[in-house]
């Protein structure tokens, strides 16, 4: 594929994804609301990602604590370790890393699932039976990812703080209650709210990108594989891009 074709494909994807997103916002407010389907997808997403985000969250907290402790020790500021871990996890690492794992696990799954439904004519079958596949398959999944990622992030933040505590007690004699006290002393609402709020955007990105690529998959099984991998790549890049924008916005709103 030469440069012009790549450029053409890039703009086609951007245009298609934008139109798909606009269609989502048009359809999301129209009944039927498919509450049962949304709940089912949220259950599945939670089960699918629970173990991997638990392990990741714990390791993030532990490693962050172990890496930061010697640096703070150099300045005699070890007492700030719980607060440093909490701020790093809650403001940035928890939301972004959970979102990236979510993109890898859930975004690829949605891409593959809808892609497979497209190439085996299941989406056509749904349309012919007078059920709107966009509303039934796409809207429900995007709502589920948008609502589920913030919940997972709050859980990961908590697990990471436990990992951080393990790192702290390796070098310091600190009770868990006092550790939590130091954590709560360090963080404010302006740390927690933007950290969680941006995961709604990340969850939306994972859902809409995976759905767009799966829903428009072509060329049989090859197309399904491509939808799945491309969903991870595009949603990961968009998560990082939007993180940059949202951090800047947060700093303006909460100086």
């Amino acid at each position, binding site marked *: 594929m030469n440069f012009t074709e790549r450029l053409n494909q890039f703009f086609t994807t951007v245009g298609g994804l934008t139109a798909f997103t606009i269609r989502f916002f048009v359809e999301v407010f129209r009944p039927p609301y498919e509450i049962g389907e949304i709940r089912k997808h949220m259950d599945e997403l939670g089960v699918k990602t629970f173990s991997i985000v638990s392990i990741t969250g714990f390791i993030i907290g532990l490693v962050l604590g172990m890496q930061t402790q010697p640096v703070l020790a150099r300045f005699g500021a070890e007492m700030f370790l719980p607060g440093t871990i909490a701020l790093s996890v809650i403001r940035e690492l928890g939301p972004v890393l959970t979102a990236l794992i979510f993109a890898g696990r859930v975004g690829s799954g949605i891409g593959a*699932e809808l892609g*497979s*439904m497209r190439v*085996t*004519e*299941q989406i*056509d*079958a*749904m*349309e*012919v*039976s*007078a*059920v*709107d596949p966009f509303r039934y398959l796409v809207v429900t999944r995007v709502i589920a990812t948008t609502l589920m990622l913030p919940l997972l992030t709050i859980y990961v933040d908590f697990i990471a703080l436990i990992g951080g505590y393990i790192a702290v007690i390796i070098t310091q004699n600190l009770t868990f209650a006092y550790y939590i006290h130091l954590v709560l002393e360090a963080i404010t609402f302006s740390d927690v709210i933007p950290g969680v709020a941006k995961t709604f955007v990340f969850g939306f990105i994972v859902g809409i990108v995976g759905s767009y690529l799966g829903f428009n998959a072509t060329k049989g099984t090859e197309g399904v594989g491509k939808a799945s991998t491309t969903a991870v790549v595009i949603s990961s890049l968009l998560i990082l891009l939007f993180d940059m924008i949202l951090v800047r916005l947060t700093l303006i709103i909460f100086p």
Partner: protein
Amino acid sequence: MIKIENLHKRFGDLVVLDDVSFEVPEGQTFVILGRSGTGKSVLLKCIVRLLEPDSGKIFINGKNILELSHKELNELRKEIGFLFQSAALYDSMSVRENLAFPLIRHTDLSEEEIELRVKEMLRLVGLENAIDKMPSELSGGMRKRIGLARALILNPKIMLYDEPTTGLDPVTSKEIAKLILDMQRKFKMTNIVVTHDMVVALSTADKILLLDKGKLIFEGTPDELVNSEIEIAKEFLSNKLD
């Protein structure tokens, strides 16, 4: 019942349907015969507006479906059953859920009534025991039967079959052809069957249409096709084509 007028469809430079016109009277079965890639499935998908033709008109019960709103189109689609080439069963749902899906979406039936209707349809296609199976556990022939049961569950007035015997062995193909006939006798629907299988064509058709390179080159009864001098028809009859 179904009237197609001057239908044109192309993909890029490739002309798939070229000025196709025909009319299927109510309660009749028309078979569209043609080689692979001659536009048969595209024609069928245009009839339910899964694909938009470039020009032409498609009338169903007197309404030009190309002029219907999305809501009107969906109302009409409830009266049309469509058996896909791959059967297109929802693979995340069991056989029971596949069949119940249209009933849950479009009727006010109670759970018990839905269960009874699902079992009744499965009995008609001879697969009552498959009710709790997942689509991945079914053979090709079983999938087609379940697909047919799902397509018929809302009592459609029109039934469209897209290559109903593709990928099946000759014995199963004959069984599916017999099932199409049985369903026609029982429900008196208007049928369009797209196929390249002469067994299906000759055993089910009131009329056969021959499609070649996007053009209709023959319209007549099975007997007229057998006695015709058209080269492709002869080749089909001697099983020279796929």
